[in-house]
């Protein structure tokens, strides 16, 4: 088990190194931060000097090495634009993104699971077909369009929910939460619904497929023969047997939801990591971009590693296979 863990962790470290190296290669093409940092009256000589001091003239590998050297000590530098410590910039925004992503995940499960079961049981009926059809729209509509439509309906026309921001937040140490105030909760609704659309469809389709499989299995037939009530049979016995892949997929997808959140956050001016990253790209804020990419790849790698470890714990064959 220890060997397995060490192997997994060193793999994870390698992946993160590779991601940041790729990021640094790309940074050469995002443009020149100095053009945006200085004002119009700055002379060419002053610009060149600033570029030199910022190390932008160094070869990519030298820049990369100095970044890694500092990053392993937890120092990601300060933002070119905000002049703020990058780690605290990201740390402040992390709770906002996580709350959004977690709520979107919960919504997708609460809505997606029953829908999946219903569409599986009532296969071929008109209402399940319409749900199926609507779910295609859910997958194919870009999330910024969904966001704008929600804002139009619920903020502009009905005036029920705020169109932007996070409302009033309460601090607990480093974690700021919007879950404890009314305005915070109201502000959370639209963005998390917008973010969960795609995920709802995914959960629903997965549950439907699994359900159809399970409903054909022998134990369901026996249960039916024994006279187990339909409701109990579907939601208790059959659904339970579908949940393993759903749980795995949900856990893995938290990573991609964080990535998706980037668009949702831009539309709703949600002060999370995605919004920060978009701003950083616009202003060629290299320290922020680099740290964001490393942290997101860290989250991905961690989730994957945890899933792998969980599998290994559950299934001893996998553990042996890696020896």
């Amino acid at each position, binding site marked *: 088990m220890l060997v397995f863990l060490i192997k997994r962790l060193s793999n994870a470290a390698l992946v993160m190194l590779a991601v940041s190296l790729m990021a640094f290669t790309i940074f050469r093409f995002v443009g020149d931060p100095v053009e945006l940092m200085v004002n119009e009256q*700055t002379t060419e000589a002053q610009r060149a000097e600033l570029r030199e001091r910022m190390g932008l003239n160094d070869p990519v590998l030298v820049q990369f090495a100095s970044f890694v050297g500092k990053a392993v000590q937890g120092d990601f*530098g300060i933002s070119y634009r905000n002049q703020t410590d990058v780690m605290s910039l990201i740390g402040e925004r992390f709770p906002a993104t996580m709350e959004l992503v977690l709520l979107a995940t919960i919504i997708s499960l609460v809505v997606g699971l029953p829908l999946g079961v219903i569409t599986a049981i009532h296969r071929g009926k008109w209402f399940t077909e319409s749900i199926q059809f609507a779910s295609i729209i859910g997958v194919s509509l870009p999330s910024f369009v969904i966001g704008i439509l929600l804002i139009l309906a619920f903020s502009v026309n009905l005036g029920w929910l705020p169109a932007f921001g996070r409302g009033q937040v309460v601090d607990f140490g480093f974690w700021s939460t919007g879950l404890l105030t009314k305005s915070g909760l109201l502000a959370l609704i639209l963005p998390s619904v917008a973010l969960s659309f795609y995920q709802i469809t995914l959960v629903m389709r997965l549950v439907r497929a699994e359900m159809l499989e399970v409903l054909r299995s022998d134990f369901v037939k026996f249960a039916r023969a024994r006279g187990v009530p339909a409701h109990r049979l579907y939601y208790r016995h059959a659904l339970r047997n579908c949940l393993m892949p759903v749980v795995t997929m949900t856990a893995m997808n938290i990573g991609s939801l964080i990535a998706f959140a980037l668009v949702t956050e831009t539309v709703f001016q949600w*002060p999370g990591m995605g919004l920060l990253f978009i701003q950083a790209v616009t202003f060629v804020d290299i320290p922020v971009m680099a740290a964001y990419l490393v942290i997101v790849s860290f989250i991905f790698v961690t989730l994957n590693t945890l899933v792998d470890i969980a599998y290994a714990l559950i299934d001893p064959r996998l553990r042996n296979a890696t020896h």
Partner: protein
Amino acid sequence: MAGLKRHILGGAAALSLIAGAAGAETIRWGGSQDVTSLDPYSYGSTFTLAFLNHVYEGLVRYNGDLEIEPALAESWEILSDDTWRFKLRQGVTFHNGAEFTAEDVLASLNRVSHESSPLRGNLPSYKSAEIVDDHTIDIKLTGAYPLLLNDLTNIFIFDATWLKDNGAELPTDVTKGVEGYATFNANGTGPFVIDERVPESRTTMNVNAAWWDKPVHNISRIEFTPITSAATRVAAILSNEIDFIEGAPIQDLPRLKGSTDVQVIEGNALRTVMFGFNRREKLEDGRDNPFNDLKLRQALAHAIDLDLIQKRVMRGSSRNAGTLVAPQIPGYQAELDVPVEYNADLAKSLIKDAGAEGLKFSLSCSYESWVNEEELCSAAVSMLTRVGLQPTLDIGPRAVQSPKMSSGKSDMFIFGWANEPMLDSYSILVQALHSRDGTAGVFNWGDWNYPEWDALIQKASVELDRDTRLGYQTEVLKQARDEMLFVPLHQQPMAWATSKKVTEILQQADNKPRHWLTVMAK
């Protein structure tokens, strides 16, 4: 992170704050971008400076008519060509209660002109300063320089002791990787006091009851929230969640005007948008540069239908331009401001004379620098194609395009100049029309060289008599038009929108909100 942390509020307190926040004299401002920092000497952002002007002030300021008037300085005199004496206002206090003295001016000037300050270009002529007494200071310049006051409108004054106590005497140096105190904290003399700042989500200010000037406004609190997505910003003002936006997208103006709860304020900004040309001997790909032929430049000017651009691309909101500066800019002359006539046939025959039929070249633009820039450049490309040229559109983010344009990698490029913060045509002359030479010609992207213009600009730079100086400047603008150095397009539209609660608001051509002049309904 040091400094401003968000307030920790219990449930009940938080709710009452939200209820109270919508009071009549609170203006809720939805910004098109966030303020980069609370430190005015940190990043080349005009927007940030305009915002921070609510908190910090300079020795002089622009009044409602964009004329310079005393602010923290009461009066000034020119002692000799390179020395100016400023008498400072007495009885002014900073937000922390400290008295404003000459020490503060000296510390601020040293801070902005320090070599690690990204904004030292805002005070190009500064050499040193000398305190005469508590409320008198002499500023020494590198030579005679007529535009010192214009520059000083943008140099905000810090409290020297506060800077010293918090180790912020020098500007924050991003290359050192250490945060600065002034990034999160502010202590100015202005009409509003920073209450809290949460980057990207909220910056609030309360009125400064001890402000030295008699307030015109009746605002007790400003709540600023950046809403970078234009559609969301429009939705937020339509749903009455905010009272003011300074970036109303022009395609949404009909909709905003149609709402009974929203008022739209429109105007033409100072910024003139134009097309410029590479003027080096060779183009980037090694061909002889055809743009050095005046006939071709004139042909391009005649080929662009300004009225059509004004009507379609800018939705009727821009103002067609014939010269390089807006009417509000000193040095402007109405006779020069006649837009080049659209005449495709003339353009074709000029192209034929220049032997440039079917010329292939690139037009470089960016996505986000100017209003509707992408549509504008696409329109220009199809107009130029129609007269028998073969332009291609080269478009990308500003951070990628600017270095390309300035280094001669683009054949024809879009260019915009507002003459800010100087608000004088000397700005575009010395920065863009002058040949590349030391501090001059930084924005001479095409690398053109007109020695007689250089001489006139040089004369203007040391001429302290305003009329004589503007005479020189107008002469250069006239010759630039004859030479068709740039093809002027228009002054950009600017549009703000407010809720009905705002009864008086001043929109100046410099597009800077000045809420110390805003009045709200009780």
